[in-house]
Structure formats: structure tokens, C-alpha cells
């Protein structure tokens, strides 16, 4: 990017470059300008790329590189060029064309190189230029094609994809940029088409996997029966005139097959923790609906389930999907879910998902009361160590559980009241018990929530009062609470308006409070002169 200090010379050079480009385009006299411009590749990347993009788009539009071909067996431009040179006596015109093409190929090579290893800004620029050139080439092919009217420059797409799926760098930004062309069905289709070939059978490294997953995540896959004949879809490489468009219409089956093929490979790889997590996310959010036999995932998910933390949780979601949609029978799912509620969850990124999921899991009103009670009690226990924003979620959640299962009302309104019976008078709930049904939850009350009424945060204290009031008739909406962070709470408290600002009424003579000083009781802060 332009650093302020070198801004001026760069501007100058870009102006010079543009001038040269215009001269080049204006007349063949200045053909050598092109060489100059390419020569400046290293010095001023961005402007050079932009200029070249402008030149070649113009050239492609004019069809300057288009070559009538007698021999049409050739596949790649380079070969053809060689053949042409050998077969025919090169006229100046054809020599110029071949020279131009040569330059074009050189630029392509440099672009791909830039995509791979440069500064991010240049990478992005190079990629977008490559995509634009590809699109232009699709519209105005360099050679006559057999499929009249439609042509997709696959030989351009593949190297780009290969660069994107580099095993060395995480290309999240580039893939995000690449996603832009995914709006065009033809580009999408050909991307999917070429993916299986790019997926290796043997174990690749983690970066590659992560790039691949990123790409899969970003490439949309329309649902079945939708988007087959969508009029509004524009083609990336389609010819301008509409009537000549005979691009093979969206092949849902083909795409799915490609995806399945890719995924079949992916399933066999061994995964690092991060990649595993990512894979599960992509699987759950994108892929699983398009797999032919999701049941095959069971083993994979079961293995993942045994890993603690977010992976286990994500796997659980997968299992849940299989249980609900594909008739998998897995009775321990609630025990598993129960064991996931540990104090550590509050420091993971997936806690919102977990709460969302468990809300979903426990949405059935036909679950045994003891089970739900165990969940409620355990969650209440967790509030004793949770940060305030999570306490708010949990309170809503517990409230919902109480709403769904009227039997749980005894936890906030015991029918008999009185003291807890038992040997020690301690809370009968067993926090360490793994099985929710054996945790004695129905024999306790939610004292924790009552304790929260004394929480330092007024919002939490107010929310915890719900156990005192009659429950509402509709469930609480957890969605808003799931998004909230600690920063929100801070800001909201700062903004809270009051009529009068209360002040302390005892004048201190030093750092110490006139009464109730604690800091100086434990800390010696000042020195004496």
C-alpha cells in the first residue's frame, strides 16, 4: 500500500504508466510500451497490475489477440502458438498477435505468482485482476471454441484455485475475495467441478485443509430444487447477447457429487484441534445437508464427541442432527450435554452456540423432570462462577426450563417448605455426579439464583428476581442475550441516566475512606517522609 512518504513518486509512476498504456492502446507504434510496463512489475506493483488489467481488458474486448485457427486440436495457447509458428509463415500481423499473447501469458504467470506470496494488498489486487481477466477471456475467447456461445476458461480457474488452496499460507482474505464470483452460477459450478481434482487423497497439511474448508465454507451450495432456472442469474463468462447463452444449466447433481467426493477425502484425513473445530463448523453449517449418506459421519462424530471443549460440543450438534433427522439412536446425548456444562465454557467462543443448542435439546416438554431439573440446577451452580453476561443468559435459560416443565416449580416454590432434610443439612444436589438423573436435583431449590439477587451488577440482581414473581406465559427470548458481551453491560451502565448524582457524605482526609476502609488494611501504599 502507499506509504505516505512515497506517495508522490508512486503517483507519478502510476500517471506515467497510465500514459504509456493509453499510448499503447492508441497505436501500435508504442507496442514496446507494454514491455516497459511489464518491466516495472517489481517496482510498483499495484499500479502496474491495474494498468495491465486495463490494457488487456481493452485488448480482449477488441479481440486483438483473437487468432483464426486452421488447426484446432490444440488445447493450450502456448502450444498453439508454437504450432502456428512452425506451420505457417508468420505474417507481421500474426507475429504481433503471438507477441501479444506471449506477453499475456507472462502477465498471467506473474499474477499467479503475486497471488501466492506478496503483501496482502497486492495479493488481493492480483486476484481480482486475474478474475476480471478470466471473465473477460470467457466473454471473448482467444480462439474459436467448439461450444458456440459459451466458453469458460477452465485453464485459468484451476491455477487460481491451486494458489488459493496453498499449503503454506492461510488465504482467508483471498478466499473472501474469491467468494465474490461465487454469485455467478457458472463460476461456482466450475469451481465445484474442479475441486475434487484438487483434493489430494493422502494427508495434506493443516493449512491446506483450513484453506479448503474456508473455500467450501464460502462457496454457496444452493438447496435442492432451487436455483435451477433462476432467470436473474448472470453468467460470469457468458457472451453479451442473451440468445446465444447455452451454458449447461445448473447441475445440482453434479455439484453434490463433487462435494461428496471432496468430503469423502476429507473424512479420512487426520486433523489438528483448530482444523478439527473448523471442519465441524463447516460440516454442520454447510456440508451436512448436501451429503448423500450423513449416517456415515456417525463414527467421525462419535470420535469427536469424546474430545472435550468446543469440538465435543460441535460434534454433539452433529449427533443431534443425525438423531433428529436421520433416525440415529443415541441415548446418552443428554448425559453428554450435561457433562459439557463446566465452568470453562464461559471462556470459550462457543458458549452462545452451546446455550442455543441446549435450549434446542431441552425444548421438548416430554423429557423426564429429573433430567431437566438437573440441568437447571447445574446451570444455577455455574452462575456462581460465571461472568455477568453469561449469568443473564443462564437465568433466561433456567426460566425457560421452569416454564416448560411445571413440575420444576418446586425448585423455586417448594410445596412443603421448611428445612432441607438429611444428615448434614447441606444442599442435596450432587455436582460431581455425571448422570443427570442421579443428581438429586429435584430435591433442591435454586438457592444460587436467590444468591444472585445480591450480585454486584444491578442488571443481574434484577434478572435473578424472576424466581420471586409469577412466571410469564411465554418463554423468554434468549437470542438477544446470546449476543451480549461484557462491554455492552459496561456501556449500558455508563449511559444509565439518573436525576441526581449521589455522593459520599463523609469527607476523607486522605486516600482512606472515613469508614469501611479495606484497601489500606491490606496494602501499604504510601511512604513516609
Amino acid at each position, binding site marked *: 500500500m502507499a506509504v505516505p512518504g512515497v506517495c508522490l513518486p508512486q503517483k507519478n509512476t502510476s500517471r506515467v504508466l497510465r500514459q504509456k498504456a493509453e499510448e499503447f492502446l492508441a497505436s501500435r507504434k508504442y507496442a514496446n510500451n507494454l514491455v516497459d510496463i511489464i518491466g516495472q512489475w517489481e517496482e510498483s506493483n499495484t499500479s502496474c497490475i491495474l494498468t495491465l488489467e486495463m490494457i488487456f481488458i481493452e485488448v480482449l474486448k477488441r479481440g486483438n489477440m483473437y487468432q483464426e485457427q486452421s488447426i484446432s486440436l490444440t488445447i493450450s495457447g502456448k502450444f498453439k502458438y508454437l504450432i502456428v509458428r512452425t506451420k505457417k509463415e508468420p505474417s507481421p500481423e500474426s507475429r504481433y498477435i503471438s507477441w501479444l499473447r506471449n506477453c499475456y501469458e507472462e502477465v498471467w504467470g506473474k499474477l499467479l505468482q503475486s497471488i501466492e506470496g506478496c503483501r496482502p494488498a497486492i495479493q488481493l489486487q492480483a486476484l481480482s485482476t486475474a478474475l476480471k481477466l478470466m471473465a473477460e477471456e470467457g466473454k471473448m475467447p482467444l480462439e474459436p471454441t467448439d461450444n458456440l456461445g459459451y466458453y469458460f476458461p477452465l485453464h485459468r480457474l484451476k491455477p487460481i484455485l491451486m494458489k488459493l488452496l496453498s499449503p503454506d499460507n492461510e488465504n482467508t482474505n483471498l478466499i473472501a475475495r474469491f467468494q465474490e464470483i461465487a454469485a455467478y452460477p457458472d463460476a461456482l459450478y466450475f469451481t465445484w467441478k474442479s475441486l475434487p481434482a484438487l483434493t489430494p487423497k493422502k494427508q495434506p497439511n493443516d493449512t491446506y485443509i483450513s484453506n479448503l474448508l474456508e473455500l467450501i465454507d464460502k462457496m454457496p451450495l444452493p438447496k435442492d430444487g432451487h436455483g435451477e432456472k433462476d432467470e436473474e442469474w448472470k453468467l460470469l463468462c457468458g457472451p453479451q447477447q442473451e440468445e446465444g447463452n447455452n451454458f449447461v444449466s445448473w447441475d445440482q447433481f453434479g455439484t453434490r457429487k463433487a462435494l461428496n467426493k471432496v468430503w469423502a477425502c476429507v473424512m479420512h484425513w487426520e486433523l489438528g484441534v483448530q482444523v478439527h473445530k473448523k471442519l465441524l463448523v463447516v460440516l454442520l453449517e454447510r456440508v451436512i445437508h448436501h451429503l448423500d449418506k450423513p449416517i456415515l459421519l456417525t463414527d467421525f462424530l462419535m470420535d469427536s464427541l469424546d474430545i472435550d471443549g468446543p469440538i465435543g460440543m460441535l460434534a454433539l450438534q452433529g449427533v443431534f442432527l443425525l438423531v433428529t433427522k436421520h433416525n440415529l439412536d443415541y441415548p446418552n446425548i443428554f448425559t453428554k450435554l450435561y457433562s459439557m456444562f463446566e465452568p470453562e465454557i464461559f471462556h470459550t467462543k462457543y458458549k452462545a452456540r452451546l446455550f442455543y443448542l441446549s435450549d434446542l435439546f431441552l425444548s421438548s416438554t416430554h423429557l423426564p423432570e429429573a433430567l431437566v431439573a438437573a440441568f437447571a440446577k447445574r446451570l444455577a451452580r455455574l452462575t456462581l462462577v460465571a*461472568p455477568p453476561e453469561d449469568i443473564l443468559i443462564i437465568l433466561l435459560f433456567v426460566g425457560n426450563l421452569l416454564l416448560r416443565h411445571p413440575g420444576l416449580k418446586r425448585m423455586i416454590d417448594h410445596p412443603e417448605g421448611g428445612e432441607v432434610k438429611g444428615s448434614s443439612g447441606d444442599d442435596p444436589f450432587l455436582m460431581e455426579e455425571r448422570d443427570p438423573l442421579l443428581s438429586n436435583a429435584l430435591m433442591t431449590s435454586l*438457592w444460587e439464583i436467590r444468591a444472585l439477587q445480591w450480585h454486584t*451488577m444491578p442488571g443481574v440482581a434484577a434478572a435473578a428476581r424472576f424466581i420471586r414473581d409469577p412466571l410469564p406465559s411465554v418463554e423468554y427470548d434468549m437470542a438477544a442475550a446470546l449476543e451480549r458481551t461484557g462491554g455492552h453491560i459496561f456501556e449500558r*451502565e455508563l449511559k444509565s441516566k439518573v436525576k441526581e448524582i*449521589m*455522593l459520599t457524605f463523609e469527607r*476523607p482526609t486522605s486516600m*482512606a475512606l*472515613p469508614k469501611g476502609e479495606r484497601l489500606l488494611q491490606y496494602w*501499604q501504599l504510601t511512604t513516609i517522609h
Partner: protein
Amino acid sequence: MVKVKNKKRNLAETTAKKRDQSKKKSLNAFEVHINKEKHKVLGRKNKADRGLPGVARAKAINKRKNTLLHEYKVKDKSNTFVDRRIGEKNSSMTQEDKVMARFAAEKMKAHKKKNIFNLNDEELLTHRGQTLAEIEKYDDPRSDDDEYSDEENKTGKLDKDFVSEAHFGGGLLSKSDSSMSRKDLIEQLIAESKKRKAEKQKVREQTLDLTDKLDSEWKDLLPIVNASKKRVEEPYEKTKVDDYDIALRELKFEARGTPSDRLKSEEEIAKEEKEKLETLEADRLARMKGSAGNADNASKHKSADDLDDGFVVEDINEEALTYGEDGVVNGISKKKDDENLEDNNENKSVEESESRESSEDENTMPEDLINDLAHVQTLEEKLKTDTELVPNNGNQIQHKSKDPYDNIPVLKISDDNEVTKAKVNKHQRISDDADLLKKNDNRAATSTKISKSPITAESSGNGVEDKSSESDIESEAEENSDDNDSDEDNLSDLKMDESSSEEDTPLLMKNVKFSTNVTQKVMPYSKPTSTPLKSILKTVNNESSKVEKLSAEERTALIIADLLKRKEMMEKAREELPYTYAAPESIEELQKLLQHQNADYQSVIVERIIKCNHQSLAESNKEKLAKLFAYLLQHVNECMMNAEDRDIGNSFQIFDRLCPHLYDLTHALPGNAKTCIQEIMKEKHDTFELHQKKYPDLDTLILFKLVSLLFPTSDYRHPVVTPAIVFMSQILTRCRVRSRSDISKGLFICTLVLEYTLLSKRFSPSVINFLRGVIHMSTPKPSVQVIKTIPPFKCIGELSNLLVVDTDQTKIKINPESNLMLATDLNENEIDDNFRIRTFVTAVNLVSEFKTQLEELDAAYPIFEPIIKLLSMNKMSNYPENVKQRVRCILKDLNTLKNKKLEYITREKKKPKALRLYEPRIETVYDGRRHKPMSKEKAEREKLLHKYKREVKGAIREVRRDTAFLAKVQIKQQIKSDQDRKRKVKEIFGDAALQQGELNKIKRSK
């Protein structure tokens, strides 16, 4: 007999009545007009079924005669004649009755004015038209004697000779010279008499004039005469001047205060102060409860008609209708006040020692705290006044009987008082403005000393031989430090007392400032207390923990030296620095002022800036002060940011000194302070959000401390405090703990949260988590088992064992009660064993504090369970013995939580809902007329309109009848006057005819 008579009389009356009735009833049938009824309704009594038009008309006419006619008659007449004679208009009175009544009224009037006990003068006696009383005043000095000096003129009549001659002289015959006729003689006599009278009159007037003149001249002379007299007396008086007389005069002529602004006695001032504090405290409590308290027992307002639960209405009203000054509902607080009052009364009856004990327990009962403190203070003040009045032992004996512990200290106090009082008196005489305030201050200062001394006596009653009255600050300090070593409860209590005495010190110092060199002499005796003392105490503690060999004398010497030094410093600062400062316009200006000064100097400078720019002095000062507040905050901020290892104590010192001024500025401009601090906090929070895992610097931490100084931390919700709490809990939950400074900062925040929640007893999970983490860090873990902890801390790895003491440190000297973390801990990174042990003990101490705070919660055991487990797992083999004991003690304390009886949560039983009683729904009955269906308001309006119409009609009718009546009157008058005229004309004609007839007769006869 009597009965019969009565009967007879009754009979007579009834018959008479009957007769009357029959008379009235016998109406002429033709006079009755019967109003026809269209429909007869059974059982309805119609008043208007018949009318008596004749009677009614007569009535109306009569009425008009009395009113309208009267008005007509006086129509164009402006003056009226009111006849006030008694009974004049009452026709039923006879003439005699009237006379009697008038006489009685007259008598009554005469009686009324009289003094009922004065039996003598029924009527005023007069002489010559003047009452005797007037004459007896002798206003007019002219007596009769002057006028009638000679005999003959006495009566102003003709002299004897003349009269005898004239009247009785034998008539004309006896006189020889009868030249004059009798007529002449009489005339002469009259003239003579007139002349004499005129002469007499003239003489009299002349004498009067002369007397007046003499009087006025005498008045002019009078001052001269008096002056000469005085001059003679003066020397005599001068010798007589006496202290007693002066005092007497002073007392006599002293300006007397009006009853309304009477000077308040000290008790009253104290009481007012106490009441003010009580109301403030009650307010604070109300705010602490927030809406929780309100929702608890104050149900929503319901109208009186509501029958849902009619039986509680009164209760609610009583509570809900009390409002505080600021509009906050005060119902609960008022209740509390009552309780306080009760407490107070109890306290008064209870021995002093008990009240002291209760004040010791105050840590757990903040509501009573202030009350008791104030109570103790008043008691002490009383005591003080007593000692003033009778500065001997009589008073002390009284106290002795009260409390055995007070014995020694009171003795000391009295001595001390005498000393100080003497000094104070001297001081007062010298300083020009010997105001009451000063006295108060001194008194208060001594009283706080009193409050301290009993404790010292209590604790060290066994081993303190120091009863001498040399200068008790030394002994006190010494004892205090002893206390600190021996017993922690006393420490906290002592702190409380110290803090109460702190309020007085600045005032005291102010006084000192005004006085001249005498005060400097006084200084060593007039103990400056509290703040310096406190910090010094602490250092002493610390040092004593390290170097215990330091003897008591050395320590006291050190303290005195320090005190003197500080005092001198302040004094020097006050003298050296210029007296006026302009308010700084920018932060640079302020820094230029404060840059190279030490903390005390800075404090003085800021104090002077504030004084010079006080709000009341100029309008623009408000803005200046607002700026100053912001700059001071920035100054503190920068001090903290730049604090290096060496410097850190100094930075805290600066902050320490600036706190009171910040407090003052906050009170001057609360809104400004709020926004300033909020903005700074927001800024800090933003930087914190950028580096979420890193502990913020000291400048952020000190901000929290400042917040707790300026704003009430116990409020349920407060625009500054609540964000601060949120911020602190975020720091504790998120930041990674890796180094010594991290741990120290975390503990610092934990201590602050403890301070914040001390009164409100709120629960903050993040603090407990942090303490758990610290204890986890210092627990050596068994190799097989992983002990879980909460995420900012690691369960395994090197970071989880940062605080484990590996080497044997049992020899290290650490006092677990007075263990203090150091300011330098906040900056250093290396962890040594000393730090480990200190941190561990501090964490455990904090846990125990939080335990006392939260033990009332039902979930207290689950909250502390992990910590209990960790502590019981720790063998503490490498810790010093006293630390071990302390921790075990606390652990035992924590374990009691487990035995707490839990009660199931039950909702409050709802009151049975009473059946709703509806008002009867009344439907209109069909009555033949068609009613338009209309809304209630409209119907009401229609009704009113109808009524109005009828009234208007009635009024018009009345007016018509009035005019008719008047017309009738007029025509009658007209007719009458016409008739008169006719009659007169007829008469005249008749007369004329008669005359004519006579004339004709004469003519004919001629």
C-alpha cells in the same frame, strides 16, 4: 296533684292547638286548585297535587312588598336610614317592653366594661367635666389659688358692698343721691360685673403665658446645670470601676437574641449533626436496596374502592406516603429511623462499655454503625462538658462507678484536658477571633482521644504501666501499635475510631495556621492525629514485623519524630508557598505548579487554588473549578502512569494528599465530577478492550479507589460506581495472570471490590474466582490429579504453580493479621517466597472477609466450596507457624458454612383473593318517553341543559311578576295622587263657590 295539674295544662294546650288547626284547615273549597294527575302511581306522595293559588299569590305579594317594594322606594336615594333602636321594628313588643329592653342593654354595656373585682367606682366621678382620676394626675400645675388670690375675686362675682348696696340697700329711698334711676343702676351693675370678669380673664392669661415662657427657658438651661453636676461626680465614679460591675453591665446590656435564633447548645449541634448523618445513612440504605426493597413490601397503589384486598390499604399508605427531600420514597428508611431511635434509647440506658462493644461488632452491622458512633460521640461530649465544668475528680468517680475500664483513661483525659485547655485559653486570648468553632474543634479532638483510650486500656489493661500524663499521644500510639500486634479485632475497631477523629484534624490544623508563634509552642502538645498517625502506625507495624528488636522507646521516638517532621513540613509549606494562586487554564499550567513539589506542598497549593477560586467569589469560578477537577484527575493519572519502582510510594502519597480536595471539588460540582470520571473510565475501558488479556496499569486501578472515595459504593445502581464494578469484574475474569504484578493487581482489585461491597454485602463471582485461582496457584498439586480452576488461571503447567513455596520458609517473620501487600508489588515481576507467602495469606484473609459478607446467602457453601477444598488440601509445610495457624483458623471458620441449615425456597403465600363486589348495575326503566341512547357525559350535559332551561323560564316568570307588581304599585300611586288632586280641586272650588256665594249675598244685600 302536680301530675293532674300538668295533665290539665297539657290538655288545655292540645285543645288550643286543635282549635288553631281546625281554623287553618277550614279552607274554602273554591280557593283550592287541584292539579290533575295523568297516571296514578300507587304509593307515591305527590307534593304538588293541590295548590292554593290565592294563598300563594298573597304570599308572593307579601314577599315582594318586603323586598321589591322596599327597593323601589329607595331606588334613587343614596343615603339610607337604619333604625337601630332596640325592638323598633318588632311589632310584638309593647312600648314598655321596648323601654325595658333598651334600659337593660344600656346597663349591660356599662357592666361589661367593668372590672368585676372593682366594687367601688360604679360610676365615674367628675369634677368640672373632668374625671377625678384625670385631675389627680395634676397635669396642669395651675391651681385655683393663683387665680383667686384675694378674697373678693375668689368667685369672680361682684363684691359684697356693691351687691348689698344694689340688692339689699333698702331701695331707692335709702340712698341720698338718687340721681340715677333704677334702670341706670341696674345697667351699671351689669357693666361692672362684666368688666371685672374680663379683667380677671386677662390676668389669668398673662400668668399662663409667663409660666410657659419660664418653663421653656428652664429647659434650655437644664443640660448646663446637669453637666456641671456630672463633672463633680466623675472622679468619684472612676475609682469605683470594678470587674464585677463591668461584668454586671455587660450582662445587663448584652444584646439579647430573639427566641427564634437562639444559640444552639453543643448537645443540640451534635444531635443535629447526628440526625443529618442518620438521614443520609438511611437514604444510602434505601438506595442500596434499590427497587428490590420497594418491590418487596410496597405493593402497587390501589384505589380505596378496590376491593381486591381491602385490608392492607392503610398499612401501605403509611409507608408509601413518606417522601424524602429528593423525592425518594422514604417509607422504609423512616422505619429504620425509628429503629435507630429505639436503639439509641437502649444504648443510653445501657452502660458505656456495652455500647463500645457493639461498636466493635459494627463490621457486620453497618446500619447501626453510624448510630452508635454518633451515640458514643455524644456521650463523650457530655463527658467532656462535665470535665470542663468540674475539672476535678468528682466527675471521674462517677465514671468509675459506670465502667471499670474507663478508670484509667478518664484520669488521663482530665489531665490532658487541663493542659490543653490552658493552652487553648492562652491561644484564644491572643488570637483576635476567638470563635466558638475553634473551641469546638479542640473539644472534638480531645473527645476523639477519649474514644480511643478506652480500647487501649481494655486491651493492654494488664500490662500497661504507663499512667503518667506526660503526653499521651506517645503512649497511645505505642499502645495502639501493641494492639495491632496482638489482636486484630482491636485493629479494625481502632481504625474506625481513627477515622472518626480524622474529620476533626483539618479544622484543628486550620486553627493552628492562623495563630502565631504561641501555637508552635502548643503544637507538640496539641496532637495532630489520625492520618499521619495511621500511616505511621502501619509502617511501624511493618517494621515491627521485620525488626522486632526495635524497643518501644525507639518506636515512640520514631513516631514523634515523624509527626514533628510532617507537621513542620506542612507548616513550612504553608509559610513558604504564596497565598494566592490563579486557577490553571491548562494541564500544563497545573503541572508547572505542582511539578517539583512534594505531596504536601501540592496539597497546600491545590487547597489554595480552590480557596482562591471558590464558587461564591465569582460566577466564572464554577467553570474554573470544573477544569481544575479534570486537570487534577489527569495529574494523578500521569503520576500513576509514570510511577517507577522507586517512585510508586510517592505517587500514592500525592494521590493521598489530593483526595480531600478532589472530594471538595466533587461536592462543589457533582455533575462535572460524574462526567469527568465517566469519561476517563470509558477511555480506560477502551484501552482495556484493546488488550483484553493484559492487566491495566496503576492509573486505572487508582481510579477505582477514587470512585469509592467520591461516590457511595453501596448504591443499588449508580452511574459511576456500577460501571466501575463491571470494569473490575471484567479485569478479574479476563486478564491473564502471569507475574507478580498481575497477581498483585488482581488482589488490589479484589480488595477494592471488598471495599465496594462492604456495606451492601453484594456478591461478585469474579472476585471469588480470582481468590480461588490465587489459592490454587499456591497449593502444591499432587502429580496424578488435576485440580480444576476457572480459566484465567491454568489448571496445569508452570503458571498454575507460580505461588507454591518450595523451600523451607518457616523462619520467615510474617504477621498474618497485619500482613500488608506493598506498593512495589504492583510493579515488579519476579516472584520470591516472601511475596508468595504474603499473597497467600492476603488471599486467605480476603476470603475470610468475603465469607463474613456472604455467609447469609443460601448458596454460601457452594460459593466457597472449591476454596475450602484447596485449603484443606494444602499441607503448608513450608509456611511459618503463625501463618499456618491463621489459615487453619480461617478454614475452620469456612467449614462452618457447611453446617448451615438450608430452607427450601418458597414463594410468599398469596392472600386469598376476595370476591369482587360490583356496583349494582342500574338500568333505566321504560317510562313512555323515548330516551336517546347517549354517553354518560352527554346525558349529564343534557340534564343540565334541561335544568337550565327550566330555571331560565322560572326566572323570566318571576321577573314578569315583579314588573307587574311594580306597575301595580305605580298605578296605585298615580290613582291616589289623582284622587288627591281631584279632592283638592273640589275643595278649592267649593271654597271659591262659598266665597262667591257670600259675595253675591253681600252684593244682593246692597
